[in-house]
């Protein structure tokens, strides 16, 4: 009678998060600050991306103690990250009862070729994408939600903007094509043909697409919403700022009222220093290139 883990139930969960902010947290205290500030979900991690970047070495799934601590601390959904292609980490997180798994390039990939077959799981997955090819391949594998990859832990919005514009631009190009041109577009982008036909018809991806990777200020969040994001993930931007509580609240409001520039100006006043950003250059370790 009752069916769990259906496509509708998994994608629907992501629909409920729309217009909201999902925040990275590393303990119960931060999770409570996030919930209090109005986050729609938290991502339980051992280290935020900026610290993963600084520490180097192999980044793995968080210690289950931390994930459990966060799950016990808040009533909003809790997400956690598994390494790309790491079927066992994903199954562990599913068994623990996390509400969403991020198969994430922020962690060191376990498989450099294949992603997890996400249709096999009851728990829904979110994956990163830089273009329509990556987006549709992840959906084909069963992702119920997408996000831009951006460049995590840099506090630099430039890559997230590039990825959001790329996906949106490709959808527009697809819509202006004649049907007999779509097959070649499928070849060029590496996107499954049937999915392209559906996106062309509906003018949008079949799942929500959030912004992630480099969001550090309320204005960054508003920018991504204006570019067509359904919501935002903030990784290091909140708890690496000097005033996490105020930053968290301001980013939540800027996401809801992203087109009210006067309000965003008001709530950006006196917030203190944002996280220190990083310029993208040849030396930058690009986490975004860890999968396609």
């Amino acid at each position, binding site marked *: 009678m009752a069916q769990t883990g259906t496509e509708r139930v998994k994608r629907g969960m992501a629909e409920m998060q*729309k217009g909201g902010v999902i925040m990275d947290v590393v303990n119960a205290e931060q999770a409570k600050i996030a919930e209090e500030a109005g986050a729609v979900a938290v991502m339980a991690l051992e280290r935020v991306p900026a610290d993963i970047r600084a520490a180097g070495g192999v980044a793995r799934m968080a210690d289950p103690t931390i994930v459990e601590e966060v799950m016990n601390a808040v009533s909003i959904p809790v997400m956690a990250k598994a390494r790309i292609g790491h079927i066992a980490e994903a199954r562990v997180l599913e068994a623990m009862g996390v509400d969403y798994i991020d198969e994430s390039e922020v962690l060191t990939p376990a498989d450099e070729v294949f992603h997890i077959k996400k249709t096999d799981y009851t728990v829904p997955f979110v994956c990163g994408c830089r273009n329509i090819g990556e987006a549709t391949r992840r959906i084909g594998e069963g992702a119920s939600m997408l996000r831009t990859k951006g460049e995590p832990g840099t506090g630099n919005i430039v890559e997230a903007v590039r990825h959001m514009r790329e996906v949106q631009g490709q959808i527009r190009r697809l819509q202006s094509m004649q049907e007999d041109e779509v097959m070649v577009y499928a070849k060029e982008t590496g996107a499954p043909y049937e999915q392209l036909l559906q996106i062309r018809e509906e003018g949008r991806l079949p799942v929500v697409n959030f912004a992630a990777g480099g969001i550090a200020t309320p204005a960054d969040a508003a920018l991504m919403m204006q570019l067509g994001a359904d919501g935002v993930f903030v990784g290091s931007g909140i708890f690496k700022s000097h005033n996490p509580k105020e930053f968290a609240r301001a980013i939540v409001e800027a996401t809801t009222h992203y087109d009210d520039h006067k309000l965003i100006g008001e709530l950006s006043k006196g917030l203190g220093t944002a996280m220190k950003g990083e310029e993208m250059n040849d030396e930058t370790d690009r986490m975004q290139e860890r999968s396609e």
Partner: protein
Amino acid sequence: MTTIGVLALQGAFREHIRSVEASGAAVVTVKRKEQLDMIDGLIIPGGESTTMRRLIDKYEFLEPIRAFADAGKPVFGTCAGLILLASEIDGSYDVHLGVMDMSVRRNAFGRQRESFEADLDIEGVAEGYNAVFIRAPYIERVGKNTKVLASYDGHIVAAQEGHLLACSFHPELTDDHRLTEHFVKMVEKSKQTLAS
């Protein structure tokens, strides 16, 4: 024409807008309290109830929505919207809008992996209705003037108290618009009553 507002602070408001349009009413996306004056009925969508409550407080929606409901204008809460309407939550009277006489339990069916879809009969509205439950609440008890419309596995999942309608599932996530149509009819009726 009957105009229905969808509270658009956070959550699945785009789907509700689509569903109202399919049911033949005009829609307003409500982000500011002044917009409540433009509408005949209000839908409070699914999303995260704690997030929505914070934004409701921030933008001073709480009293205006209570006044809207007290004036006899219909309000329909789905999932998180149901929690916002309830007069008792998780056994505590620390409530949000508190306009509808019922006690609800949050995340009552469990976490996301326990989320499900199932067929329901909704009294006087629809038989064989495909209902989508996502980290859903259920209603533990209803007041004497609140009518139970649907139950699942012994738990109340839809109810109506006069001009107030609530369900713990997501009617906006399917193409079956019968419950939204029922609400549109409630709004049309109340508009006539309030005008006379």
